[in-house]
């Protein structure tokens, strides 16, 4: 029997790699250090697997197939969108647990799309490289299980379904045959306008609203957020709070704490780091 032992919500901002020196030194150092803090906190959880929930950016999936939610059950590498400081590499996986989560979902009303061999994009690669890899280098064996949900390309997965999907992950982990210790990482957000004339705008009020819901474990408030509200106040990139909703759904009732936050227009987003404590 496995257990969800914790969760994180973190950004996956590619501009950090493409223009690392754009923000003021104090700001950029704090944001990189926030990833380090996440890694230190992950190391204390003695995890055997991380489920990293990302968003497709109309990159992994084209018009031929746009899954509502997908799990990678086989070999994993990435990112496909390489950038300075983020080269493509093999990513340690956990095929047995990923396959179990998919199968458990299929038996309980969650028809996962499955990727049997998968190249992730930066949504999964950035937290894997900055948070999980440092813990592996300490000697811990942690397999990464990528999950992609439809929060970048319509039709979007609903907030309620994203929360329920987190619950499905939790139920599957708790039904796992091995004593897995699983951490769920929601990768994305918070407010940002991707590819739009407002690109570079950050809405701190929206960001704090979402972080407050996360820290309170306020599933009802998250579930009630409409797409119109999110698009207006958080931008099209703000739809990625669905990844946060998955984490909250996997840890119902759990409280969180903000590791760090900064609105960084130079990196076109509000960068929020939250740990959910189980």
């Amino acid at each position, binding site marked *: 029997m496995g257990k969800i032992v914790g969760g994180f919500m973190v950004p996956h901002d590619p501009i950090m790699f493409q223009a690392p020196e754009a923000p003021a030194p104090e700001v950029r150092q704090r944001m990189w250090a926030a990833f380090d803090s996440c890694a230190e906190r992950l190391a204390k959880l003695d995890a055997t697997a991380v489920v990293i929930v990302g968003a497709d*950016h*109309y990159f992994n999936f084209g018009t031929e197939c746009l899954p509502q939610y997908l799990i990678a059950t086989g070999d994993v590498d990435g990112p496909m969108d390489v950038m300075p400081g983020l080269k493509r590499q093999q990513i340690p996986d956990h095929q047995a647990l990923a396959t179990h989560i998919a199968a458990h979902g299929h038996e309980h009303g969650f028809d996962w799309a499955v990727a049997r061999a998968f190249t992730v994009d930066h949504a999964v690669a950035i937290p894997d490289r900055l948070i999980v890899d440092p813990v592996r280098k300490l000697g811990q064996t942690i397999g990464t299980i990528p999950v992609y949900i439809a929060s970048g390309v319509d039709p979007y997965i609903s907030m309620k379904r994203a929360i329920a999907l987190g619950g499905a992950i939790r139920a599957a982990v708790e039904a796992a045959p091995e004593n897995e210790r699983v951490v769920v990482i929601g990768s994305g957000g918070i407010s940002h306008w991707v*590819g739009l*004339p407002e690109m570079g705008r950050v809405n701190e009020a929206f960001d704090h609203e979402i972080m407050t819901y996360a820290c309170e474990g306020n599933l009802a408030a998250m579930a009630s957020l409409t797409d119109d509200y999110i698009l207006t106040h958080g931008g099209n990139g703000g739809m990625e709070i669905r990844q946060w909703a998955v984490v909250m759904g996997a840890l119902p009732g759990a409280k969180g704490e903000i590791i760090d936050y900064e609105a960084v227009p130079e990196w076109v987003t509000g960068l929020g780091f939250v740990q959910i404590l189980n």
Partner: protein
Amino acid sequence: MSRNVMERLMHKLCVDRVVKQRFKEDIEGLLSRYKLDDAEKDMLRHMDIPAMQAHGVNPMLTLGFWFENASDPSPMAYMKALQKPAGAVTKQG
């Protein structure tokens, strides 16, 4: 008019090297393979980002398309292109 076909080709122009190369070397031949009307072809010929977005193309895709195919793929050049009125680039030729 088909946003979906536009998005199909633009996704390939983000991830498929062969298609990207043909876009540079034989754009008319490439465009002829897709069910696009003249206005849509003009948007692609002139990389008219505002017109694409007004047409309903996903902004993540217009951004990726620009980064992968523009002669100046910088974010600043993208933002400059984005500020022009839809159709302005196409009309200027």
